[in-house]
């Protein structure tokens, strides 16, 4: 006992150091909300994650069927809504046509394969040429937001070149003043929640929170909400402005998408091909 006491007092600096630093760390963990939450959470996280995995598995056992019927119904309702919205009122000739002139129809498709982590991301859906899908058709997300364009089509499947691809450019405009720009992703920032609007004319003023919608000049119908500007007026070296925006589409959780069929796409392409470039 006496030897122990001598030992302790001989190395008192070390033992005092242990005692005081333990008090200090105890105070740190006890009195600071952040450190406490980190300590508690790292133990809770393990248990919580296990339960979460189990729950997801249970939920999906019986939800596949419900999802299918809901998506189909949604597509039908969206087609009807669009039929009401896109009546061409600027006609000068009255044509007796009991059907409304519906340009766009929606087709629900299930995402079979998805990727978000690559530089150029491609998705696969379970509808193909037998369902009327053609190369170049627009694809949008179920709630809101754009997804990409159809790339290759087989009989029962099709691939989508998603927005998260270096070649994808989608014609968009600012909702408030219809200033045109093009939507691109990547360019030094590979966050799947952010994209850039580029080639906006220099005299346009962008502000944080401005809504960006599709312009209607590409395969997408006009007015589909794409996202909100978070960093406006990024000057580039050319005569155009750029802006960074938050996408509303959550690419990482996409399960269903809508392919938009444009009835007049062929006609428009044929007409526009008459114009020779550099004329």
């Amino acid at each position, binding site marked *: 006992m006496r030897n122990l006491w001598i030992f302790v007092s001989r190395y008192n*600096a070390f033992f005092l150091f242990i005692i005081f630093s333990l008090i200090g*760390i105890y105070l*740190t963990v006890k009195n600071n909300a952040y450190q406490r939450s*980190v300590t508690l959470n790292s133990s809770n996280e393990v248990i919580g994650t296990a339960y979460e995995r189990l729950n997801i598995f249970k939920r999906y056992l019986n939800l596949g069927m419900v999802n299918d019927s809901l998506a189909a119904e949604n597509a039908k309702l969206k087609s009807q809504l669009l039929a009401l919205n896109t009546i061409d009122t600027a006609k000068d000739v009255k044509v007796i046509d009991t059907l409304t002139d519906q340009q766009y129809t929606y087709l629900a498709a299930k995402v079979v394969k998805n990727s978000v982590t690559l530089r150029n991301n491609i998705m696969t859906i379970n509808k193909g040429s037998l369902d009327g899908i053609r190369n170049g058709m627009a694809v949008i997300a179920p709630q809101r937001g754009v997804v990409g364009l159809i790339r290759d089509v087989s009989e029962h499947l099709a691939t989508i070149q998603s927005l998260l691809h270096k070649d994808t450019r989608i014609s968009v405009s600012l909702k408030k003043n219809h200033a045109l720009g093009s939507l691109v992703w990547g360019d030094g920032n590979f966050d799947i929640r952010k994209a850039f609007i580029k080639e906006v004319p220099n005299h346009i003023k962008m502000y944080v929170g401005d809504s960006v919608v599709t312009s209607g000049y590409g395969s997408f119908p006009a007015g589909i909400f794409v996202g909100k500007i978070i960093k406006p007026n990024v000057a580039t070296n050319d005569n155009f402005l750029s802006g960074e925006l938050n996408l509303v589409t959550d690419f990482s959780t996409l399960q269903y998408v809508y392919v938009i069929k444009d009835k007049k796409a062929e006609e428009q392409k044929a007409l526009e091909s008459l114009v020779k470039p550099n004329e």
Partner: protein
Amino acid sequence: MNSRIIIVNIIRWCILLFVQIFLLKNMGFYDLSTPFIYILFLLLLPFGIPNILLYLLAFGTGLTLDAFYDTMGVHATACVVLAFVRISFISISLNRDAIDDPEPSLSYMGFQWFSLYAFLCVIAHHLVLFFLETFRLSEIGYTLMRCGLSCIFTLLIILLVEFIFYKRTSR
């Protein structure tokens, strides 16, 4: 002599903490480099101080800082670690019986010894401080960068202060 040392240390404590809390707390380069000059008080405590008193002073100073920084216990732990490094370094590098200088300052101990002493103490203090503040290893690169840059900053200021109050006659 003894009461003079106590008064000098009390005044030093007040001035250093005042500067730290009201001036340096608002300083920082890009949230990366923050100087912590108040540890100079712990560095300059006299050689003859008992270990238990040194630890109590370090802990108390740390707690005072914590009260102003709203980081209960972080500075206190860092200061205790600094006190341990100080005791270890002094007992390794100097012969305990042959110490006749009153305090380990630049003017008594010379530039070489003092800069090594200050460097080791500052780096120990900053490592503990920043890692306790971050409290996770996933941001280790950023934490180490903050720690390194702050060390340089603190060390520069400590040496600067020591050179300003350099007493040529005592050496």
